[in-house]
């Protein structure tokens, strides 16, 4: 038998492409965030409300990832924000090469912030870097407060956590403190925002964080 040392990253192609995306965005001073959650947590509703309420203050463009359809892109389009839909045709996550193509279709130079809505899935998207400055994980209260403990990787890697659908708190058994404690066990600095994208409750804190993060991006030049 003959053994050959390879020592090469298996996802090196994705890695290389994500670094290209990162420099593309950094050169233009644009903030890009990768939003990850289970299906149905309310990512698109959060995006629609965020775009609408920040209109005139922050120019947002969106890259929508879904297995099929452009339902989400249509919802974003209604806000008049530029949007590119990616259909993964079965794949469980977005990859950096898809983002590279999508960035070419967005009017990046006219934007401040690019939000990527990843395919609904708490596991796989966390393993694929896209070139984003940070990940934002969304968890809705209907999913249960045990998710940060059960899916540690995405909570460990995210800069912010939005706990969405807080308007349902009286109807479901969800202990916000437990979710927060578990999310912080591996990630002490994660910013946590309990919000209702439906009623608007708590969204102001999330906008403040976005604004601050954006300022930091601009001052890095």
């Amino acid at each position, binding site marked *: *038998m*003959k*053994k*050959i*040392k*390879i*020592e*090469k*990253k*298996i*996802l090196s*192609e994705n*890695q290389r492409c994500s670094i290209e995306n990162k420099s593309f965005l950094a050169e233009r001073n644009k903030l890009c965030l990768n939003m990850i959650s289970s299906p149905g947590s309310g990512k698109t509703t959060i995006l629609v409300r965020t775009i609408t309420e920040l209109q005139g203050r922050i120019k947002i463009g969106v890259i929508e990832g879904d297995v099929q359809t452009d339902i989400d892109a249509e919802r974003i389009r209604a806000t008049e924000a530029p949007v590119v839909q990616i259909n993964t045709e079965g*794949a*469980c*996550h977005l*990859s950096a090469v898809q983002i590279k193509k999508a960035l070419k279709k967005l009017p990046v130079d006219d934007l401040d912030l690019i939000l990527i809505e990843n395919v609904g*899935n708490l*596991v*796989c998207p*966390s*393993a*694929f870097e896209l070139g984003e400055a940070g990940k934002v994980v969304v968890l809705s209260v209907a999913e249960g407060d045990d998710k940060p403990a059960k899916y*540690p*990787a995405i909570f*460990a*890697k995210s800069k912010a956590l939005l706990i969405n659908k807080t308007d349902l708190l009286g109807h479901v058994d969800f202990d916000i403190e437990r979710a927060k404690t578990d999310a912080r*066990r*591996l*990630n*002490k600095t994660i910013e946590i925002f309990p919000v209702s994208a439906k009623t608007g409750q708590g969204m102001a804190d999330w906008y403040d964080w976005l604004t601050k993060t954006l300022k930091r991006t601009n001052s890095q030049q």
Partner: protein
Amino acid sequence: MHEMIVAQYLLAQITDEAVKQNARPVAAKISCGKLNAVNDEVLCFAFEAIAKDTLCRDVKLEIEHKPLQAKCKDCNQIFNVEFSKPQCKKCESRDFELLPDAPLILEEIEFQTEKNHEKNKN
């Protein structure tokens, strides 16, 4: 689910090396970190399925999981994080910074040499 894509990249890399070495690959060693979300069984199943009619059909995968490490902010100790009880091994502080998780790496490939190829024939 993304194990299929990992398997495809893996198959391409092993095939490239096999062509370069002009030898038949029989095993491959992979390593990955705890946050990589790679399930061994699913990856092996996916790899077997796509390698079945290729020159990599005999490749057995060996997957090593590297521990997730963190640095304690109180005593600077570097320790392996246990998901069930994440705290510093030395001072039990829960204030720590995660170190980068080990990426998915194709460590080495084992090839059958002419000699043991002959042996197997006999």
